[in-house]
């Protein structure tokens, strides 16, 4: 598994099971970036209530998340969210599409709940870019999404591109070094002919990029890094846009996943090396010549 999937597996499997066999249910689970879900059947076994808590909900609403959710889920979206959560969907198991393809597409769309909510600023930026393109100059609003405690995504549209900036913080020393290598690799990898069309990636440590330098609430310590993606119109043509949004949202998780995987890989190499060295050491062991020791009366001693 190289790429992380945009949909939530727990929602997908639970819905799939409940459609076949409805039963009462009350589960809480999470998704990346501190998103909390609660799936329950408060009224009847066939009426599922799916609620989501997302840290940056207010910002997302400001950038039009509600319209996107309305477009995706229509009447499923509840006007009043469950207490302690930001947004709720009600899924009636008796009114879901009957054919297997439609059904799995429906389940998948529900499983993409978080992705759709977080897609709002990106869609808005793509729209703004289209509007600015005709005027030929100018810049759109700088959108800030504080999706984690100390990290944020900044999205800005200008007349010829959309800039997406991630601020990243590595809690662990080792992670920071791995992260640095990775991010520099991103910059270098673009030189390969196969991925010339990929968006341009810039990485800076400590110094924020020019676009966001004027912001007051930036934290410029040694463990902060900024990754800038420059998306050109070819990356968000109507055909490409959904994929681009799904991937770019998961960038931070993708990065951390791969840092962890490379650590695991290093560990397995280390274990292998140790096992090899141990073999060498064992070969060097001298065979101890066993001499029989006897007492005066001629009896042998044995260890017990």
């Amino acid at each position: 598994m190289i790429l992380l999937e945009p949909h939530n597996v727990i929602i997908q499997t639970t819905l799939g099971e409940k459609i076949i066999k409805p039963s009462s249910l009350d589960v809480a689970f999470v998704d990346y970036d501190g998103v909390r879900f609660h799936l329950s059947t408060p009224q009847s076994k066939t009426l599922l209530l799916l609620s989501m808590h997302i840290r940056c909900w207010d910002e997302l609403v400001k950038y039009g998340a509600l319209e996107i959710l309305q477009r995706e889920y229509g009447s499923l979206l509840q006007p009043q969210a469950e207490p302690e959560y930001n947004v709720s969907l009600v899924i009636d198991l008796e009114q879901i599409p009957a054919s297997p393809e439609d059904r799995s597409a429906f389940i998948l769309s529900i499983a993409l709940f978080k992705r759709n909510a977080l897609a709002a600023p990106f869609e808005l930026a793509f729209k703004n870019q289209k509007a600015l393109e005709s005027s030929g100059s100018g810049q759109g609003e700088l959108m800030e999404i504080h999706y984690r405690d100390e990290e944020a995504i900044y999205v800005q549209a200008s007349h010829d591109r959309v800039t997406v900036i991630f601020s990243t913080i590595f809690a662990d020393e080792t992670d920071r070094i791995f992260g640095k290598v990775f991010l520099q690799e991103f910059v270098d990898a673009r030189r390969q002919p196969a991925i010339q069309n990929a968006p341009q990636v810039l990485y800076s440590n400590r110094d924020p990029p020019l676009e966001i330098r004027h912001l007051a609430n930036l934290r410029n310590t040694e463990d902060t890094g900024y990754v800038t993606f420059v998306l050109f119109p070819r990356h968000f043509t109507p055909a490409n846009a959904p994929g681009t949004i799904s991937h770019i949202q998961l960038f931070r998780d993708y990065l951390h996943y791969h840092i962890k995987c490379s650590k695991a890989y290093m560990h397995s190499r280390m274990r292998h090396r140790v096992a090899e060295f141990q073999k060498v050491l064992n070969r060097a062991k001298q065979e101890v010549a066993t001499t029989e020791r006897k007492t005066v009366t001629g009896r042998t001693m044995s260890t017990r």
Partner: protein
Amino acid sequence: MSLLAPIICDNGTGYSKIGFAGNSDPSFFLQCLPNCNCYSGTCFTVISGPPVPSKPGQIASKRGVEDLDFFIGDEALANAKTPGFGLNYPIRHGMIDNWDHMERYWEQTIFKYLRAEPEDHYFLLVRPQSPVIVEAPLTQSLQTEPPLNPPENREQTAEIFFESFNIKGLYIAVQAVLALAASWSSNRVTDRTLTGTVIDSGDGVTHVIPCAEGYVIGSAIKHIPIAGRDITQFVLNLMRERGETTAIPPEDQLRVAGKVKENYSYVCQDIVKEFRRFDAEPYKFFERFEGEHSVTGRKYNVDVGYERFLAPEIFFNPEIYSSDFLTPLPQIVDDVIQQSPIDVRRGLYKNIVLSGGSTMFQHFGNRLKRDLKQLVDRRLDASALASGSALKSSGVEVDVISHKRQRYAVWFGGSLLASLPEFYTSCHTKAQYDEIGPSICRRYQIFGSAT
């Protein structure tokens, strides 16, 4: 950020049960769909993928991601036939065998299935009580105590979780203690105590584990080589003898026997009476099992008769199934408690907790309680007689607790304990790990009990 729910991981030889604290059921049973029946060999904590290369080759020119190309659980079984892929079982007999695979297994559970950022979560892992030594040489049978899961094992686990995944905090719990905690959900339990005897019966082996105030009395643990797999085999034998199996295609026979065991079996109170009842009114008690050939779709049905109550009877009268192992379960439980320190025995008799799928038979608890009570009373009477009827005991309370969550009792107990506020203070945190090192896992703190 508000604290996110801790993750409970119970990696067993058979299934891995993984989910978030506060829920009543695990979110994932990896490798098995909840409805499918799995038998030895087909259902394991599996990982499939090409073997880890022994030499990295020219590292500079190769920037591949081959080490990410693997599957776990059901997907591993589905991909097992792909060329270059093979099935690996990183856990054997309850012990982690291959750390490379295990690390990658966890990697994928966390990121693909749970979709959790490990840095934001506390983890509760379940440490198996003791690996079962299957082929114990006869000469060593006197020192029957198999080694407990060595602390080095826990240290390695902590190393992986803290260093690879940077988790916030880790708690390594003992299986039996979690099973005791799970019994608090029963309405018959009035005080939350961690003293009791756990009878844990899964697919392979049944353990009887005494626990005193959260600590396992290792010297008194006993294992019984009768568990789910044997019951299924016994059901199959009974059906074969009656000639029912002719209707069932050979490859489905074991599966059908498993279904019969799960759906129709119960524990009777008196075997002779039960036989009589069945003979008097066969139409009332005999059930019909309807199946479908897995390939051709041909329908077939079989009668389900005496095996309904005989199947779980092998716990109480093992001689009807096996000729090697002849001690009934109540006797074993009694022995275990008698081997424990005298001051906890009352607590152990009073709180006998069932856990695992093979203890789910109807009335299993009642029967065990009755048989055990008889044993205890007989001994008390004998001692009263021996003292010339001068001293009479006030009696020993025997109680067997069965509850709704028995099947995943260990996981559920973990979920219960991890949602207590004390959980966070009992965890080993990342800061402590950085300060002290993996050896902190040798310290084990119990919490949550009311006493």
